[in-house]
């Protein structure tokens, strides 16, 4: 099992686009960031000046001058000793505060960008990709704290050190400048190149090993059962050894840079001493310059670490920038998200969008009874969807009437286009041809908020948020009253469970509903969908998945009943039970409507529906009834 490559190695993107994007976002906090950088510089300088002053003090004292000439230096040494620690403390707090403010900004922007991307690609993206996105955002913090602030500090210290030395001796300043240039520019560049090369070689192997680890643990049972453990283990061990060998080899080059850094600080200091003595600088100052040089080069060497850090952060930063600059670009990672982005009017237009008189009250989502009468409902006319130009259509000229109060079930084999149909109705998927209208207004012309007020419901992979049951339900409709909560939970069969909980509605459900059983989680998602009370169409995608057959029938009936007389219900299901109550059943296959009609008609016709129904029916008869 040779693993795939994991993360792609750092691309040599030389455009600094990521940095520009972050720069733009950081601008409001620039003052704080620069302040933190200056405080960091102050910290380094305090250390440098402390050693330089102490040296001056000692060498001067050796000349036995009167004590009062040294008083200032003595006070300075003590003051600098205290101020260095205080400066460091302030700098770290200021830096973190500024960086976290920028991170807040980036998080908000990333979320806003994803939120307005206008389609559900985020849902189709794997969880890994999303959590990577979240850690990518954290990379911004590292960029500011471990790259930007140290870089500002090192530059300021280097500049001041060269300037200060120049006041004493021009040639010594030149020697120092040379050393600083090597330590602060050449070595960081070298470190960058080496780090990039290392990660290009090591990252794929580490990715492969991570895949090995997943396969050997999650696939352990299969490997054991099929007697393949030994071979898989050997393969993984070979790759682990190869990685170890590679890591050892790369370390040799990488650590040479650190060795060079040490050499450089000593050599520069020696050069400064020699040059200063040649230039007949006073003996006291030679010592000051030598000690100061050691500290200045040490400060510049911080750039080597910053460069390494930067190189490692680049891929993550690039992804964040890519998302913010071009929200659709990132989604190309998923094959089925290549459809054009639907036009999306500004939310500000929402209240006055010309959606016809009938939708004038669409905004009052609490209107569960749907008392408006003059509604044409929702309609699909000859809708065709294609995810890629060369792919067969996911929906092929599908027409569907969804008048108020109608109960429609969509069935069909997996991959038939059921999810695509739901996507078209929520506006997440834009048709290549055909029209989708709500009360004779194009769905695409409606603002996103209005669209979801007209059509919403339970879709596949509904997320349950890490908060209370109440908060989760209120996401469906924030204005819902206690009675409405109870009614929706009751219809979804959640109410008994809620009442059993000590915390009731305030029960926290855990990460993605992890504290709930599968059935409760499904009921919670269903209750939320019912509560959302769309004005036109309630979508129910496999609402009873994970429930046992009898509970499933019960919940489906109560959920359908809950929708009321004027709301359309569109049910997608693979269980062909309890469909007698539906006005129309649509059989989709390969993007086309193959059969449509009521249950009684369809079981009489030969076709997928009858076969499937027969199969399920027989099966349930054959199922031995549980014994009391």
């Amino acid at each position: 099992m040779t693993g795939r490559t994991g993360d792609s190695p750092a691309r040599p993107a030389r455009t600094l686009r990521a940095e520009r994007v972050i720069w733009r976002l950081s601008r409001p906090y620039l003052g704080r960031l620069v302040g933190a950088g200056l405080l960091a510089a102050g910290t380094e300088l305090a250390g440098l000046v402390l050693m330089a002053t102490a040296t001056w003090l000692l060498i001067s004292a050796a000349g036995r001058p009167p004590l009062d000439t040294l008083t200032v230096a003595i006070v300075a040494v003590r003051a600098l000793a205290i101020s260095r620690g205080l400066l460091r403390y302030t700098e770290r707090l200021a830096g973190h505060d500024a960086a976290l403010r920028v991170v807040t900004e980036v998080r908000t922007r990333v979320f806003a960008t994803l939120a307005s991307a206008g389609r559900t690609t985020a849902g189709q993206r794997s969880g890994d990709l999303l959590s990577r996105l979240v850690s990518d955002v954290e990379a911004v913090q590292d960029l500011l704290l471990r790259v930007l602030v140290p870089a500002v500090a090192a530059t300021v210290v280097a500049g001041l050190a060269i300037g200060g030395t120049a006041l004493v001796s021009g040639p010594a300043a030149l020697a120092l400048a040379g050393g600083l240039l090597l330590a602060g520019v050449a070595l960081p560049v070298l470190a960058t190149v080496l780090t990039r090369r290392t990660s290009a070689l090591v990252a794929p192997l580490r990715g492969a090993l991570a895949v090995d680890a997943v396969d050997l643990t999650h696939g352990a049972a299969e490997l054991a059962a099929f007697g393949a453990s030994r071979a898989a283990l050997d393969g993984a061990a070979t790759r682990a050894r190869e990685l170890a060998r590679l890591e050892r080899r790369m370390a040799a080059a990488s650590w040479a840079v650190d060795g060079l850094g040490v050499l450089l600080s000593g050599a520069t200091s020696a050069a400064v001493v020699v040059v200063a003595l040649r230039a007949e600088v006073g003996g006291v100052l030679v010592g000051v310059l030598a000690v100061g040089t050691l500290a200045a080069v040490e400060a510049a060497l911080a750039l080597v670490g910053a460069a390494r850090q930067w190189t490692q952060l680049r891929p993550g930063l690039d992804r964040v920038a890519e998302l913010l600059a071009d929200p659709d670009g990132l989604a190309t990672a998923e094959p089925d998200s290549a459809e054009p982005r639907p036009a999306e009017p500004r939310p500000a237009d929402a209240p006055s969008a010309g959606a016809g008189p009938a939708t004038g009250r669409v905004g009052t989502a609490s209107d569960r009874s749907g008392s408006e009468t003059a509604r044409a409902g929702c309609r699909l006319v000859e809708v065709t969807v294609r995810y890629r130009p060369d792919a067969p259509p996911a929906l092929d000229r599908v027409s569907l009437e969804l008048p108020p109060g109608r109960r429609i079930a969509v069935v069909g084999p997996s991959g038939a286009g059921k999810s695509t149909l739901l996507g078209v109705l929520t506006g997440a998927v834009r048709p290549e041809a055909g029209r989708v209208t709500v009360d004779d207004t194009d769905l695409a012309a409606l603002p996103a908020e209005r669209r979801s007020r007209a059509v919403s419901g339970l879709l596949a992979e509904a997320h349950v948020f890490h908060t209370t049951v109440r908060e989760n339900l209120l996401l469906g409709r924030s204005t819902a009253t206690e009675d409405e909560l109870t009614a929706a939970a009751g219809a979804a069969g959640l109410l008994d469970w809620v009442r059993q909980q000590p915390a009731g509605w305030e029960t926290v459900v855990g990460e993605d509903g992890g504290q709930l059983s599968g059935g409760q989680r499904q009921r919670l998602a269903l209750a939320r969908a019912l509560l959302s009370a769309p004005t036109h169409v309630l979508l129910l995608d496999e609402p009873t998945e994970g429930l046992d057959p009898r509970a499933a029938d019960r919940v489906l009936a109560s959920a359908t009943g809950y929708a009321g007389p004027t709301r359309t219900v569109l049910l997608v299901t693979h269980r062909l039970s309890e469909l007698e109550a539906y006005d129309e059943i649509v059989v989709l296959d390969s993007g086309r409507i193959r059969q449509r009609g009521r249950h009684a008609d369809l079981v009489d016709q030969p076709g997928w529906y009858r076969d499937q129904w027969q199969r399920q029916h027989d099966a349930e008869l054959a199922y031995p009834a549980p014994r009391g």
Partner: protein
Amino acid sequence: MSRRPFDPRLLHRVPGARPQLGVLALLGVAAAALVVVQAGTLATVLAAAAGGELHRTALAGFLASIAGRAALVWARGLVASRLAATVKAALRADLLGAVTRHGPAWLAGQRAGQLATLAGRGLDALDAYFTGYLPQLVLGVTVPVAVLAQLAYADWSSALIIAVTLPLIPIFGALLGWQAQAATERQWRRLSLLGGHFLDMVTGLPTLRVFGRARAQVAVVRRMADQHRVATMRTLRVAFLSALVLELVATLSVALVAVPIGLRLLDGGLSLRTALLVLLLAPEAFLPLRAAGSQFHASQEGLTALDEALTLLHPADADGATHTPGTSPDPSPTAPPNGLPAPTVAPAPDGRSASAPTPDDRPGSVGVIRFEAVTVEYQRTTALREVSLTIRPGERVAIVGPSGAGKSTLLHLLLGFVAPTSGRITVDDVDLAALDLDEWRRRLAWVPQRAHLFATSLADNIRLGVPDADTGAVRAAVRAAALDEVVARLPEGLGTRLGERGHGLSSGERQRVALARAFLRDAPVVLLDEPTARLDSASEAAVLAATRRLVVGRTALLVAHRPTLLAGVDRVLRVTNGLVVEEPTPGTVPQTSPAGLVPEGRPA
């Protein structure tokens, strides 16, 4: 939780690390010596320079010591990296090997995920520990000792100051560390909730969008991120205090040393060279400890990973559950099976259909499988109680019952993933515990509930049980498992590489791959664990049809949740609360049993 800076279990677990650790210590001693030499030579150079002279010998000595230090930095990094690589490779091999040693049951629950993360990227956190923290820790011992020795020789009063202030670093560090730890722990729940909010929102974005709440949540995301910042800063204000105090101790002690020697120089009681030596050496004494302190956080992740790995490999307390078949608590034969009287051993019938390969190809056929008063206890529950049953060759037995009743445990017993806590299982009257497990498993094919697909080619996934199978055989298995249409659709057919955990295939397609594995394995016993759970009707139909083809002529145990699977079985066993009861054979099932089966049913 604060960890010891070095885990002694490591030496025991990774013996190969010992020489490298020794070299690291020696390099630390050498580095300490060079620190002293460098300060001494520089002091000489500067003392001479104060008189306007260039002390060439001292300068050369200084440069030489610098070169030596540079070489040592390089060597230390090299050895530390090698050490890290050695330890990581050894622990990886151990961790992954542990899976094979302990068997899949050991991996139940959290452990598989933890192990996968640890053996994957988790151990890479050790790099920071071994190359950053540990070498500094070594220097933190050697350098202060060398500096104090030199100072005591040159100027004992300065040495005294350093000797008194130096221990303050670890002491204050520990005190403030605890303080910060407590503050962090108080905040932790809140911090993690606030920190996790963004991920939660991003993950739930499609759901928010369905309800038109996505844009409304932008303000919430900002508010929560800002609260996260405020909460973090509150913690950091305490956490950074420790660094502040350490820095103050270090710099103040330099000031404490420098000012008195300056005054003593005025009195002429001290040579300039000695004074400079003291000044240059004093900060060096504090440097490694402070550097180690600043690496501490980065190293914690590594130490945690190390601790997890060592604990996983060598748990202090046994888990109590039955793990390995080899350690079966009571392999001795127990009382004769109660409930079902043991029939005489029936020879394996030749009931295989014509399409099956000749019996010579099979790794032996399997006779009567008998459970004799088998009880399986897990840590918290009893999965099976005193189960006795007999499965005769060629029988197709369905196992039904509510979830969690112990259905899968029956299969896991046969697979050798779980050993009976008491009782025994026999195959042809031979105790399963006495059989060579690999040999026995060669006679089994298993289709689990959720088959794991490996990140390799589709063909290799199917070949799992028969690595040397030729393409023709694989294709035949693909056809039998109704996988051919799926293969035809894939860009590179059978050669298509699958993503991690079979990413790219639907669950129905995955189950068909698992069935193809079983077809290719062509074993006399097939164990199917709800092969159609979580499938839509279309996939279910395909998988069902393939399943029916698979069980023909073999002994089959079929865990069924879906009633559709029950058609065509010979017997139905119901498992409830760990008890197994024979059910009447489903009446509506057409008699499709192939000829040649042992006359079936309960023994008279």
